[in-house]
């Protein structure tokens, strides 16, 4: 089943064409990787696919619905099902870690009780390997800890698709292993991941469909495990 359909998408920023007339599809339950040189447009393409950036031209369909023309309730449903982990974590600096993880729950599960919410937050923090104080600001954490919280925030609403932009960068080996194990479980539950990673170990762990992104153009091919080895 096709989950995302990217149709003739272009993106221009500050008079530079970053993504140029790109089309591809992402299937439900698949592993997908955007790979290519730095500055090739991978992160922009990932954000366009996730509906965070609006294409200058073309459209992105999620379950055959154009993300741009979704109603507020359709958009909320889409955001609940698709989460994004940013390259630089992008935690809200003026909120505590607890508030950062709590906000998606407040939006997508407004009727959830405080106890249930707290239980789910603690569970997701344990899953990503964060066991410190939740009442501190992101600036009090290291880059690696911020990455764990970003992942916890993305996973707390139990999405079906996860967009990961360099999700293991700034993590130590032990933490990277925890995240890898967590993502293996996530994929084995039939969920979809679309990721960018320059970490060869991570790429080896998650072989799937490879989208080679270069100069705003995309070429689709299957990941060759032997190449990664």
């Amino acid at each position, binding site marked *: 089943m096709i989950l995302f359909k990217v149709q003739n998408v272009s993106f221009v920023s500050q008079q530079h064409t970053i993504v140029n007339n790109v089309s591809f599809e992402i299937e439900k339950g698949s592993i997908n990787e955007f790979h290519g040189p730095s500055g090739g447009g991978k992160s922009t393409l990932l954000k366009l696919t996730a509906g965070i950036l609006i294409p200058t031209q073309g459209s992105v369909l999620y379950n055959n619905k154009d993300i741009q023309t979704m109603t507020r309730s359709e958009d909320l449903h889409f*955001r609940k099902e698709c989460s994004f982990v*940013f390259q630089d974590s992008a935690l*809200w600096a003026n909120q505590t870690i607890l508030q950062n993880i709590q906000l998606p729950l407040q939006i997508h599960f407004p009727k959830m009780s405080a106890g249930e919410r707290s239980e789910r937050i603690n569970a997701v923090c344990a899953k990503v390997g964060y066991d410190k104080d939740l009442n501190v600001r992101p600036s009090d954490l290291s880059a690696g800890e911020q990455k764990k919280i970003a992942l916890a925030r993305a996973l707390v609403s139990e999405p079906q698709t996860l967009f990961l932009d360099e999700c293991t960068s700034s993590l130590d080996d032990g933490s990277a292993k925890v995240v890898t194990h967590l993502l293996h479980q996530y994929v084995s539950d039939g969920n979809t991941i679309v990721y960018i990673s320059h970490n060869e170990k991570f790429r080896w762990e998650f072989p799937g469909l490879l989208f080679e992104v270069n100069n705003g153009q995309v070429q689709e091919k299957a990941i060759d495990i032997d190449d990664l080895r």
Partner: protein
Amino acid sequence: MGYPFLLNIGQASLIYEMLVIVISRELGPILVSLVVTARSANAISTEIGSMVADHEIESYVSVGVDPVEHIVAPRFLGVTASVFLLNLYFSFAGLLAPSVIVQLVNPVSFHEYFLGLLQTLTVRTILVSCIKSILFGMVISICSTYYGFKVERASTEVPVVGIKAVGKSMLFIIIVDVVVTAASYL
């Protein structure tokens, strides 16, 4: 300060009209809004600008939070209400203080002073003052949030939008002030 002069030319009663027009209708709204611009327009635009540069706004979008609803609306309402209330406070204090100062120049009873003020203070004056303060508050919040969101990528753009937000707020406050003042005399 103008009271002795008005007294000499036999127009002492005009002091009340002067006080009401200068403090409540003209000086109050514009002075308060300029103070709020200097204090808050820069703060709001740089805060939002930093959030854009750090991808925090994209992060809000990704979890289904509407940035306009979550970031712009509270600041719009907050700044507008602040300028409105500060203007009331300023006008009240501005009209109250001369009652003490005037005792040094030409002692007038408090009763007489406030009676003179109340006789001069019209609903129209209060309304113009309130409309001005609300419009100025809207101008400040719109300019500061608009320029905050103008940041595209680099954090070096943040101080630039801060300066623009303050400059443009002041410019539009003066333009709105001229228009409203002119309209109030029609």
